[in-house]
């Protein structure tokens, strides 16, 4: 017994796996559309149906029974019908046929119930005047599939990439190798490859760190040209090697974290025992080398300058252009925002997280026209709290991680924008 949650199956590495094979951007897009779809599978009730049918048949023996099915769970009516049909089929194969109660030798009341972890299907079997017998089977509960929303004028596409019980800090998909996915967690970096239509772990690289991680842990993956990636965590910087099998070298570090690469490279210092950036910038936005402590930042390149948008820890949004630091309050944005290059509208948009209620966050695209936030898309809903929102290394999409409020699992999604008109 593994003790706690099942660990990912460790597959042997594919020999000479080409980590850095060149693929076109189109191929990347195709993969990103196909792979998440492959991860979603329909619920298969056949096993618990067969198990319950066997137990019922053992209680009634072959013959005619009156069967009723009652749903006491969150199954939909169509799923309930599906289970009922499957159960009747399985029973028929065992010589048990359902007829009206008047003619039946036994009555069977099936209840589709559930507990904290499983569906619990229960059959109460009444034969003659005997004491009713009760049999049960359990089946795993399924999780809802990811949703995609689209509304004019811009549309945010949300594609589920990966879910995990452990906190996911960031996910990177190398454009040069679309069949590879890198997942950053608190104590490891997972390297995944698509095999038989599913992501399968290829390597798990441990992250060495001397001090406890701060609560609300954050971390970021940056893809590199001369090696696969760098990982930034509070007080720790890790660098991968270039060729498979990869190695990961971590060291205590107060190096600033990259906020954006070209065309507007900027780094910022992260408070190692907290969950925010100190506000000190490197090399700075022209002459501006500091702003208020902030949680997140987005670059919006313009013709002659880059407008930087910072989500400050005091709840304000700070706009920096190299000359002025303008604070904007009451935008309703949350702490997390990221810049994305869509080519639509003004070319670059800010994706900002916000919340309507206590349970679920959403992300919406905004244009910064004349330094006013202008909503540019309908919000995309998440089934819980957003814990990370990072632009990917080339700013063409954003990685969003949310903790599902129902399941508690972390779900990493890729958000990209398309022009609706």
């Amino acid at each position, binding site marked *: 017994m593994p003790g706690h949650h099942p660990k990912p199956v460790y597959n042997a590495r594919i020999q000479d796996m080409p980590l850095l094979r060149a693929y076109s951007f189109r191929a990347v897009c195709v993969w990103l559309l196909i792979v998440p779809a492959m991860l979603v599978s329909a619920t298969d009730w056949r096993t618990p149906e067969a198990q319950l049918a066997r137990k019922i048949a053992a209680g009634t023996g072959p013959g005619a029974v009156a069967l009723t099915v009652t749903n006491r769970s969150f199954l939909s009516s169509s799923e309930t019908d599906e289970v009922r049909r499957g159960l009747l089929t399985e029973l028929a194969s065992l010589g048990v046929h359902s007829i009206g109660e008047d003619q039946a030798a036994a009555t069977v009341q099936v209840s589709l119930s559930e507990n*904290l972890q499983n569906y619990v299907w229960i059959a109460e079997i009444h034969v003659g005047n005997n004491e009713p017998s009760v049999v049960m089977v359990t089946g795993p509960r399924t999780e809802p599939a990811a949703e995609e929303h689209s509304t004019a004028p811009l549309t945010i596409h949300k594609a589920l990439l990966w879910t995990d019980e452990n906190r996911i800090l960031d996910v990177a998909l190398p454009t040069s190798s679309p069949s590879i996915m890198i997942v950053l967690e608190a104590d490891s970096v997972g390297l995944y490859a698509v095999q038989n239509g599913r992501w399968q772990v290829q390597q798990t690289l441990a992250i060495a760190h001397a001090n*406890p991680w701060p609560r*609300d842990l954050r971390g970021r993956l940056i893809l590199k040209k001369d090696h696969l990636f760098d990982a930034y965590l509070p007080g720790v910087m890790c660098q991968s090697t270039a060729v498979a099998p990869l190695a990961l070298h971590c060291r205590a570090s107060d190096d600033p974290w990259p906020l954006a690469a070209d065309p507007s490279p900027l780094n910022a210092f992260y408070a190692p025992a907290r969950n925010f950036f100190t506000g000190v910038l490197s090399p700075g936005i022209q002459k501006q080398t500091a702003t208020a402590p902030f949680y997140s930042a987005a670059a919006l390149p313009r013709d002659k300058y880059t407008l930087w948008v910072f989500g400050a820890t005091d709840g304000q949004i700070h706009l920096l252009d190299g000359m002025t630091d303008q604070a904007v309050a009451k935008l309703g944005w949350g702490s997390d925002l990221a810049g994305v290059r869509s080519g639509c509208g003004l070319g670059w948009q800010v994706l900002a997280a916000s919340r309507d209620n206590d349970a679920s966050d959403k992300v919406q695209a905004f244009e910064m026209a004349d330094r006013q936030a202008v909503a540019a898309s309908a919000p995309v809903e998440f089934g819980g709290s*957003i814990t990370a929102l990072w632009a990917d290394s080339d700013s063409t999409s954003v990685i969003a991680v949310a903790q599902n409020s129902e399941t508690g699992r972390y779900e990493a999604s890729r958000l990209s924008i398309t022009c609706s008109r």
Partner: protein
Amino acid sequence: MKHRGFRLLAAGSLLLAIVAAAATRPHYGGTLHVCLRAAPTSLDPNQADFAGSHTLFGLVFDTLVKLDSQGRPRPSLASDWRAEPGNQRWHFSLRRGVTFSDGTPLTADMAATSLRVANPTWKVFSMEEAVIIERDSPAADLPAELALPRNSIAKRESGKVLGTGPFVVTEWDPGKKILATAREDYWGGRPFLDSIELELGKSFREQIVLFDLGKAQVIEIAPEQAHRAATEGRRVESSSPIELLALVFSRDPHSAADSKQREILGLSIDRRLLNSVVLQNGGEPAGGLLPGWMTGYEFLFPMEANLMRAQQERAEVPETGVWNLGFDGDDPIERVVAERIVLNARDAGLRLQLATGAADVRLARLPVASLDAQVALAELTAALGVPPTKINGGSVEDLYMAESGVLKSQRVIPLLHLRTAWAVSKTVRNWSAARDGAWRPPDVWLAAEQP
């Protein structure tokens, strides 16, 4: 691209954005003021047997294992574990880098010592960086059992009890007040709050006064008051129905007539009316000891009143004496429930009278101690004082058989499962109660202002 479309959408969206509560990351700092009814006079986890003890002891102590929201064991001070074949001997590997609040590193020997104090009948010892536990019989649910507050790992020294938890007690007035300060070096990450101040032994009425005066930010709400508290504009958070309210007999049935009488009493009680009228839907009618959301099978146990059948069965038994019905006189709900039960029983031809002293049958309120159903059942039967249940396997069917056995003993008649409710200030963020009502203070943070 037409910018007009952007602007039209912007107008509506920005209006919405202004009223929306932003999804902000947690802030560090501040003191959270909490009120509790419980008034523990000891901070030793050996005495962690009251409602809310999960949260209180979780401030200062950790367990080797914790349970997630679905009742599954997860690593805490133990990073991993395994059982030898037969599930009697278990190995728990200790997490590295954990210290007690005085800076002493946690060792496997210290963890083993702590568990021996809490469980004198267990054989517990250390082996390098692992804790080994040997039980007399198979214990498949041992990891879940280790998540109980009484199994918190403590260092007892010179009359002091220290833990490895996220807070350290800096002020302690037994039964009245605890001030707990965040540990910067906590292995799970420093809590967002600087400190938590707990006022103990406060009645529901006192708590709500303190809350409305702004002197407390988290208080307990009586189940029957939860709906009203919410309609009066307070933010009220409730658990799933978790606390068992039951009638518990002091002994086994001594005759067939006694047994029949207990059956009649169970049939006479209108649980739905108790819940809707007396408790203002602060719970759910109970047929089983464990709530249905935990087991999935509670509906199999009868919970509906059937007065006609109760009267018919009453006619078949000879005249009986009067049962004394005991209840907690300090609990206003128990008195009202007891009075209602006396009336229901009278309608069925039984005679019960209220008693605050010795009783034939008493009302009992028992928190379900674990989200693991098997551990919860074992703890419940122990708390009820009924003979321990033997669960023969790990399946839901095995659990059902064991619970059926307890109910067939007729020592207990489940009445309701009550919710645990809290009023929480709107400045308190990331406050979420698990289904069992426990909440995690290290994750809570305070916003500067209300949304």
